[in-house]
């Protein structure tokens, strides 16, 4: 097990290397210049040039890359061009809301999706199964931001039981934390939930036709245990794979959700950084996500 973990960690090294090169080049090759943004609308060419050289942006690309990669190896992600705060600190400040949202979304989706999918798979063809699958198609096709605003309209504006937006840290108490994070979680989690439910249903259904299910029944095992002990356990691999891929999907969803619900997380940080061409921040955030 330990050697497995070590192998995976070592395998991460080339991935990070390639990602860092790609991220670096992509940003430099895309139009826009942080110096122009900093200098403002009325700056002359000399000012812009001065700012550019103070940021090191007048150096050749290769030199810029090695300076950045060199400090990266020492654990230094650089300093934000605009706020002059180290990128690592910026990300750390914003990490809690994003991580909380990711965790609650995962828990919400898995806790509901796996049992639902299992029941649907074990009773394939029943009305319950068909109903679940119909709902799942709807859940998958509604865009996240539409669903978000609908939920806000119903629960916050009409029923007035949940806040419209914002974020309360878990250190402010469980109650405020849950009520502030409920809507973002459901919004972000629904697509994810139906994805997991569908995969669970498909792989449980496939397992129900296997020979060892027949063996279990021939032993006199109760149907409920046949499903959970034998079918679900064997169906776990595709389910876990999809949950894993889903974590990556979550990250793109988080950016939208944080904007809709005005949550000060990493997603908002990167959106703002992109708008301002704040290279070190963008690079830092992308590297962190690719490491995940």
């Amino acid at each position, binding site marked *: 097990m330990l050697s497995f973990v070590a192998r995976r960690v070592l395998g991460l090294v080339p991935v990070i290397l390639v990602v860092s090169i790609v991220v670096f080049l992509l940003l430099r090759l895309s139009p826009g210049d942080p110096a122009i943004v900093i200098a403002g609308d009325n700056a002359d060419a000399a000012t812009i040039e001065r700012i550019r050289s103070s940021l090191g942006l007048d150096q050749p690309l290769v030199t810029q890359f090695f300076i950045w990669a060199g400090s990266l190896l020492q654990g230094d992600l650089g300093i934000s061009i605009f706020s002059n705060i180290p990128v690592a600190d910026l990300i750390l400040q914003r990490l809690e809301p994003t991580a909380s949202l990711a965790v609650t979304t995962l828990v919400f989706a898995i806790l509901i999706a796996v049992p639902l999918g299992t029941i649907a798979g074990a009773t394939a063809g029943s009305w319950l199964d068909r109903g679940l699958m119909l709902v799942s198609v709807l859940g998958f096709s509604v865009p996240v931001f539409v669903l978000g605003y609908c939920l806000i309209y119903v629960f916050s504006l009409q029923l007035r039981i949940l806040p419209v937006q914002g974020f309360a840290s878990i250190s402010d108490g469980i109650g405020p934390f849950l009520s502030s994070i409920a809507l973002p979680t459901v919004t972000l989690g629904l697509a994810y939930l139906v994805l997991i439910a569908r995969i669970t249903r498909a792989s449980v259904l496939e397992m129900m036709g296997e*020979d*060892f299910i027949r063996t*279990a029944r*021939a*032993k*006199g*095992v*109760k149907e409920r245990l046949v499903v959970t002990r*034998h079918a679900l356990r064997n169906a776990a691999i595709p389910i876990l794979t999809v949950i894993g891929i889903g974590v990556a999907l979550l990250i793109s969803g988080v950016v939208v959700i944080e904007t809709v619900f005005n949550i000060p997380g990493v997603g908002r940080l990167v959106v703002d950084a992109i708008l301002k061409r704040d290279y070190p921040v963008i690079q830092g955030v992308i590297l962190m996500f690719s490491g995940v």
Partner: protein
Amino acid sequence: MLMKTPPVIEVQDLAIPLPGGGDRGFAVDHVSFSVAAGEIVCVVGESGSGKSVTAQSIMGLLPKVFPKPAGRILFEGRDITRAAPAEMRDLRGRGIGMIFQEPMTALNPVQAVGKQIDEVLRTHLRLSGKDRFNRVIAAMKEVNLPDPERMYHAFPHQLSGGQRQRVLIAAALILGPKLLIADEPTTALDVTTQAQILKQIRDLQRERDMGVLFITHDIGVVREIADRVVVMKAGKIVEQGLTDRVLDQPTSDYTRMLIAAVPTLEPKRKDHVVTGEVAIKVDGLAKTYHSGGLFRDRRTVHALQGASLCVRRGETLGIIGESGSGKSTLARCITQLIEPSSGKVTLSGGRDGRAFRQRLQMVFQDPYRSLNPRRTVGQSIIEGPMNFGQSRAQALERARELMQLVGLEPHAVDRFPHQFSGGQRQRISIARALAMEPDILVADEAVSALDVSVQAQVLRLIDDIQKRLDLAILFITHDLRVAAQICDRLIVMHRGEVVEEGTVASVFAAPAHPYTRELLASIPGRAEETVSA
């Protein structure tokens, strides 16, 4: 047979309708038979005869597509067709144990085998963990599983096929059921393993005075194990009675046909003289697999070690061996489907590359999976010739001729594989191979998946085609009876090596290698036959 007590299981007028669209009204058509304590009753029949459906309905495990069966099934005199689901569940495992055909897939791959035996105890009894463990170990000992304490924690993939079947037997018998239903339990096993498992079932049955309902398609197995036989065909019982009576004086034509279709061990080609030129010569062919990589331990498997052979035109060379013996690896190396690690394959005329493919064609084992289900059989047949530059019309014309040659309707080229039976599909596979006009045909277990009656027909077809087209044939099989029918010479493979070589008659009459002797001794039903030298 004395029958004082009521039979363990009595099936009375059981009728199970086939779900709509079948070729007949009933999967099981008003069937009656019984199994008494201490006797082994074999239900024998070809695929689709309804024998497995009968067994499943006794267990109350009919797939949901079947309507509710009519008739009565009495377990120790009690009708269980109307039993509540909970009652049936209690009966399964406790009163009736069942083992299945595929020990490879009948065990849960992610649960330790000991736990899977234990599950029967957990389901039916209230015992402490320690008591259960001890009983499981005792049960594993009883079926001769080696080192049960260690094997308890092993997972199915770490066990051989025979060991897995023993695990299933241990699970089925741990509560001492009155009846064991064995659904083709040895079909997927090698002959030497089959012999051991049959003996195991026989011994346990005598020890416990248990009734056994044994389902098989193999007349040889019936001879080995059965007290009484029930012969089924298309859902109906055509004959039943004591084993010796049914097998030696069958009263129905179907039983006679079934018995006659079992190939004898008499070498058919004793007097066949091969004079053709050497079509293929194989020198020191070896294949070694390496696994592992940068961070893993390297492991080397010698799948094939220095095999040499040669086949003349008009000759059939049989390659005999059990699973893992390297016979399929040899075939695949010869046909260049996998790259051999060393050694040489020479065809007469010495061609290679694409021309090599054309000269050497293969027929595969499983006719259900070796044809592309989304293409008509005509498309499958003409694909090769068209790759070699024939026009579509030309190739299609030839495909029709070939269909006729293999005994099918020429216009059937427009149909899809699922519209044919297994035997017909294998004929199509042969036609597909012949479309390339090869000199050499490699048949990898080409008749193993077929019923005996169909098997006999396909063997005749191969024999006939060989004579007409003067083919050299490499015939790979695990079945010595089949080999006796069609081969001139044999090579016997064991653990990647050729251990014996010679004419069929000499190998059968005077086997030199101990493994060959074991193989010959394991053939079911062999005692009834004498092999002439």
